[in-house]
């Protein structure tokens, strides 16, 4: 099965973008030519990386919950504090790797014309970002994980700050400092974990039984980092700012991958390492998730900026994810992972949709649009498809994720399930309301009368997203298959730990 295991496939996928960076750095000469070369190199590099990551999926063994494609090498071996370069993926991380590599390709394509200053640096930033994102999802050593996790801040800070909108400096600082504050607390927790387990290896920590009192503190420290990334209410306020100011491709990566780092962290670390604390804090997590889905949905209804509306809808959708994770049933956690993937595709597509009209009219004010369906039928269709996927219409990926989450959560808490279902209704309200205002109606503005429909390049960006959204909605088994074994194993492990504690109390 694993015919290619002798290849360091994960390292290739992780570090190949840096080779592209090297090539881009060597381009010199006329700015026009440099920009063109930078685009071409970035596109070809990211496509090669994406194809390589497809090989991961093909070779992946869905029957086991163990880590696959494992690579291990010594890195620091001094004085007891040993760090190894340890990489590997399981069913939970597999699709996040694919998501990262796919979205990077689309980001490069989407920025083809909309970015025309410092193109070389822009492409370098995206390729470096790809390395860091993929590395983060593959890392199986805490220090390696942390390096990738926090390293992401540097290119993202620059992307928002250099190529962003009018308030980009404020947004970039807010994004950086918010996330940094969360991560440094996690760093301390990681060091505390090290002193408990005697190793920085994640696999070791995943099977270590931490004392309950310590679990509570460590859980909170990890949560500080992941909650900001997810983002959970009330630490979500950086997200609307960052989204609004970031360039389109920056928003895509933010919504598509960076938010998933938080959810991924909760599934990967918080649940298996701190099962008792997870159980202890479940009411809190449920409450925060419920507030997130309902409150931010209401906020989204009131937005006048398209990007801000989608940003708030992201917070709401991620609220579903955190709810599913802490329901700790097999269905709910699978649903949470699917929902993250689905949201990664759908919200990226929605930001790209905003980007399409923004490139033409240079405003994101909803009131400035209306009646686009007359001039842009293809665009109206694409936007419709993703709007419905965001709402969770059956047949789209959004439905599978939300349905599984609700199904799994219902077994744990009917009230939570009820609250979340209310939010689904609100989600339909704000998305369709947005769609009506932008697409339907009659054209009143002069500049909209000559607006052009999707170009072939833009169609090429949307096509894979649309196919995947429908694929995941109509035949989710291709995706659930590899996820299931790992999630089942995780849920059993957490259940056993919690049962063990109950037994010891009785």
């Amino acid at each position, binding site marked *: 099965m694993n015919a290619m295991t002798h290849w360091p496939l994960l390292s290739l996928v992780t570090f190949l973008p840096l080779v592209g960076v090297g090539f881009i750095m060597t381009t010199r000469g006329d700015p026009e030519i440099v920009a063109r070369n930078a685009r071409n190199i970035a596109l070809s590099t990211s496509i090669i990386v994406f194809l390589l990551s497809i090989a991961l999926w093909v070779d992946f063994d869905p029957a086991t919950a163990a880590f696959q494609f494992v690579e291990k090498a010594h*890195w*620091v*071996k*001094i*004085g007891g*504090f040993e760090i190894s370069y340890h990489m590997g993926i399981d069913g939970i991380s597999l699709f996040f790797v694919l998501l990262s590599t796919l979205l990077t390709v689309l980001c490069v394509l989407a920025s083809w014309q909309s970015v025309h200053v*410092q193109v070389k*640096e822009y492409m370098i930033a995206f390729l470096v970002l790809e390395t860091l994102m993929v590395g983060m999802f593959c890392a199986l050593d805490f*220090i390696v994980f*942390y*390096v*990738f996790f*926090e*390293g992401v*801040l*540097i290119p993202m*800070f*620059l992307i928002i*700050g*250099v190529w962003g909108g009018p308030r*980009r*400096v404020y947004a*970039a*600082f807010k994004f*950086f*400092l918010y996330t*940094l*504050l969360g991560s*440094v*607390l996690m*760093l*301390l927790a990681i*060091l*505390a974990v*090290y*002193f408990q387990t005697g190793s920085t290896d994640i696999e070791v920590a995943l099977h270590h039984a931490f004392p309950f009192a310590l679990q509570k503190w460590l859980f909170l420290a990890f949560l500080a980092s992941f909650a900001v990334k997810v983002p959970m209410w009330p630490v979500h306020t950086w997200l609307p700012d960052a989204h609004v100011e970031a360039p389109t491709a920056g928003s895509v990566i933010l919504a598509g991958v960076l938010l998933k780092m938080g959810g991924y962290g909760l599934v990967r670390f918080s649940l298996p390492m701190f099962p008792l604390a997870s159980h202890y804090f479940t009411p809190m997590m449920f409450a925060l998730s419920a507030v997130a889905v309902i409150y931010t949905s209401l906020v989204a209804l009131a937005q006048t900026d398209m990007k801000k509306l989608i940003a708030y809808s992201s917070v709401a959708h991620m609220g579903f994810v955190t709810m599913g994770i802490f329901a700790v049933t097999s269905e709910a956690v699978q649903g949470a992972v699917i929902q993250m993937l689905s949201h990664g595709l759908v919200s990226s597509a929605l930001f790209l949709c905003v980007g399409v009209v923004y490139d033409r009219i240079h405003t994101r004010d909803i009131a400035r649009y209306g009646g686009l369906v007359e001039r842009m039928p293809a665009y109206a269709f694409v936007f419709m498809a993703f709007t419905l996927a965001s709402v969770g219409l059956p047949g789209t990926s959004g439905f599978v994720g939300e349905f599984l989450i609700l199904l799994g959560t219902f077994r744990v808490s009917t009230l939570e399930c009820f609250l979340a279902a209310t939010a689904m209704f609100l989600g339909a309200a704000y998305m369709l309301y947005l769609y009506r205002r932008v697409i339907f109606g009659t054209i009143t503005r002069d500049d909209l009368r000559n607006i052009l429909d999707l170009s072939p390049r833009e169609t090429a960006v949307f096509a894979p997203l649309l196919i995947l959204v429908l694929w995941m909605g109509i035949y989710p088994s291709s995706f659930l298959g590899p996820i299931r074994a790992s999630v089942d194993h995780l849920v059993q492990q957490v259940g056993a730990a919690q049962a063990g504690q109950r037994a010891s109390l009785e």
Partner: protein
Amino acid sequence: MPLAAAPDFLPALPEIALACAAMVLLLIGVLRGEGSTRLVSWLSVLVLIGILVLASRMGLDRHVAFYGMFVTDAFALFMKALVLIGSAVSIVMAMRFNEEHRIARFEFPVLVLLAATGMMVMVSANDLITLYLGLELQSLALYVVASFDRDSVRSSEAGLKYFVLGALSSGMLLYGASMIYGFAGTTSFAALATVLTGAGPASPGLIIGLVFVTVGLAFKVSAVPFHMWTPDVYEGAPTPVTAFFAVAPKMAAIALFMRFLIEPFGAMIAQWQQVIVFLSVASMVLGAVAAIAQTNIKRLMAYSSIGHIGYALIGLAAASPAGIRGVLVYMAIYLFMNVGTFAVILCMRQQGKMLEGINDLAGLSRTQPGLALALAIFMFAMAGIPPTAGFFSKLYIFLAAIDAKLNGLAIIGVVTSVVGAFYYLRIVKVMYFDEPAGAFDRPISVELKAVLVVTAIVTMFFFLLPDPVVGSAEAAAASLFAK
């Protein structure tokens, strides 16, 4: 018999050789006149490299000389290497600057050599007398160097301020030393350690002495609340001198701090740990908060150095081999980040005039992308963002803090590092987000370029091969506890 009692000079050979070389170079300078500055400078660099080689050939074993007043061990070697590298790079960076500012005099490298001699003696001090001797040799040379641009009011003011406050701190230190001698009956570190181990509750006089010496040393490392001189001296002194101040004397003083507290006063940890914790917290907080409002980059670096000393002191507060290892790794990486940053500051000149405003860096990423990238690397490293070297220096410090159960200190440390990240990011913001204000003069001198490239590469790619630095820091830290 008198011959047999003659002190063993061998362990102090590098210091002796350095002192002699400084005097020979002084003679060369005097005999050849003003035109000899470049020659003397390069010779000084060569001498420093030679001394570094000589010192490393002495081996890592512990040797005591001069009747126990002088000690060499792996710890001393590690810190001496940092001092020598810092001094040599400062001389290299100063050459062009001094020529352009018409202050190129051969005394400058000679004074740096003498200061380096003092620092090496400080690092190897094994007696309160040696401690004071080294400290004063270093300080006197530094006072002169600070006011080296003697026609500039700012530079003279910096030198005078440094002298007055430095003299005050030396006085306190001396007073503390005399108290310690009065109550313990010895000035030798080894004897103090024996006296204090298992001596029961420490006498108040001894504690007062300990505190006074600590205050004197806190002055030298510019830990809050004894930091007042730092921003003014950093701003006023000629930039290469500031670079020198930011690295070399800090190394020597923190080395002395560690040896003094761990070796003779290791038994009194309960008394001094809280002092160090306080100094550390105050330095981190002030370094982070006060730097936010700065507009002059040299002043900013002064507050940044105060903050960094706060982090290093966390390792000292942990008082474990892991903690000392953390401090050593921290200082080694700090040396590279700082030297690199000052190399960039030395490149900030328009039409032959030096600029010091942070806003003068505006748009540097467009006008000089390489320089901007280098400074961005240093700033992210100072903020402790992975994968730069700065992350690893903080990692080892916090590792020691968590190990020593100093959780509160670690949390304050990481929170202030986020506050500090703000002003480091501000520099990146000015360079990358703002519109260009005007290009700096080109070309950058070859020496400066070399320093920049090397420090940037070390800072950026430290993660590829951290073992040599961490390993020697580990051995050095162990030697401090071995006795």
